[in-house]
């Protein structure tokens, strides 16, 4: 029992340890993403300042709350752009999926561990962005450790929700070969409904309903609201509970759908 547990920890630990190495291998891409994110933060700051020239609050949010929220949203937005379906498409096309499926570890668990490790690496990597936003762009972060705790837990839960949603979505790659188009559609929908562009509170009711019915906001708007002073830390247990329900539901669904879809795999022998 203990031995098998130790073995599991070792195997998945090794997988997680690979993630930072992979990220460091493509240094110039990291710099590119920095530059692109700084630009969009600057654009959003000027845009929202111009918007608030006409109003003191919008959707119940002050300028400072909106700026906090949007700056944080821009920092974590790339995490919502998961393209697992694109990767699945590649595995099917190249025939590698056959190799992946015969490995003696759980296919899904391996990717989940990778995605959690990726989240950690990402946050460490983006620390300079937090500092920049705080020093030059007017980001005000809460001093209350409870707000940080609520943010951290809901970010991990939200990213997990997104992972299991994407797993379920990526199974489409077993049926269709047009994975690039599907992943672009997925990124477009997620960018808007995660709340990366506009705080959800400013949307009209029908859009808010849609945003609540889709999982994307759980990974971005929900955690960012804790850190930008929109959702009080006291509401955390309730928010976490909703996220747990999402998580359980999508976890069960993703495993069922995968076990059905995987039978459709026809490896082309490439």
């Amino acid at each position: 029992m203990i031995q098998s547990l130790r073995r599991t920890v070792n195997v998945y630990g090794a997988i997680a340890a690979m993630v930072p190495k992979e990220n460091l291998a493509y240094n110039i891409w990291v710099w590119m993403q920095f530059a692109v994110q700084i630009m969009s933060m600057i654009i959003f700051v000027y845009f929202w300042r111009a918007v608030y020239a006409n109003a003191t609050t919008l959707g119940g949010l002050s300028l400072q709350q909106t700026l906090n929220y949007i700056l944080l949203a821009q920092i974590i937005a790339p995490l919502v752009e998961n393209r697992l379906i694109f990767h699945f498409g590649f595995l099917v096309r190249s025939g590698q999926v056959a190799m992946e499926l015969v490995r003696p570890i759980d296919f899904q668990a391996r990717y989940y561990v990778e995605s959690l490790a990726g989240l950690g690496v990402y946050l460490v990597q983006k620390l300079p962005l937090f500092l920049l936003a705080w020093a030059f762009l007017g980001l005000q972060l809460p001093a209350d450790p409870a707000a940080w705790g609520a943010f951290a837990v809901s970010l991990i839960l939200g990213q997990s929700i997104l992972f299991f949603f994407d797993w379920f979505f990526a199974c489409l790659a077993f049926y269709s070969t047009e994975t690039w188009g599907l992943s672009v559609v997925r990124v477009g929908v997620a960018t808007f409904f995660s709340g990366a562009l506009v705080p959800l509170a400013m949307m009209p009711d029908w859009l808010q309903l849609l945003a609540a019915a889709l999982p994307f906001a759980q990974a971005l708007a929900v955690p960012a609201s804790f850190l930008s002073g929109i959702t009080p830390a006291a509401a955390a247990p309730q928010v976490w509970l909703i996220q747990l329900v999402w998580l359980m539901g999508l976890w069960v669904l993703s495993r069922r759908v995968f076990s059905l879809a995987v039978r459709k795999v026809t490896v082309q022998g490439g």
Partner: protein
Amino acid sequence: MKRYLRLYGYFLQQRFKILMEYRVNFLIGATSTIVMQIAGLLAIWVVMRQIPSLNGWNFDEVLLVYGLITASESITHMFADNLWTIGWGYVRSGEFDRFLVRPVDPLFHLLADRFCHDGIGNFLVGVTLVVKAMLSLGIALTPLNVLYLIVAILSGGAIFIALNLITATSAFWIVESIPVTQIVFNTHQFAKYPLSIYHRSIGLLLTWVIPYGFASFYPASYLLGRDVGALAWLGPVVAAGLLVIGYRVWQFGLRHYASTGS
């Protein structure tokens, strides 16, 4: 010149034969970018319906700016997308060496090699936005205005292509040129909104250094009757100048090209 036009037509014909082999993929590729555009537009709509104007620009006026930059961008997306892929698609693989021994200009060959259908969706969105905004604002589509629009969009497209050409040339030294291109290309995001909302230095940057302002803000200002002086007419001149610089830089890079040997 005539020969090149005929050649381009021939390349295009071959490309469409390939694309039409997979019709559904073609349609999805051509339309999927529309979803991304809708996300951005929905965000502007959500905000603008609650306020009278953005720094004195109403919703339709902002759409005009947004539509012009989108249409200009689609020109490079459709006709010069290989400037993105030159590094990993041609230089790294050694494919580029083939262009050098053929009796056509290597740059022409590179661009003509792949018409990119993914830009069609953006083109449709851009043109639709411009026409919608002009109708709502009561700007007549007179022959002069239409001509101005076509020149503005083509000049904007040329500015995009020239800047991508300059940055793509870095592939001759560093092979992987996409990050360099992406950083400069991404500054066009500023030009999706009226430049007057930014600090003066950003406006100057987008006018004289990375002149995306000529692809959206200045032509929009002219059509709306806002006084921007000679800047309303400078777009084609800037575009032509930048193309010349871009071609020079490209030739300089070409002289320093040493194949990867793969």
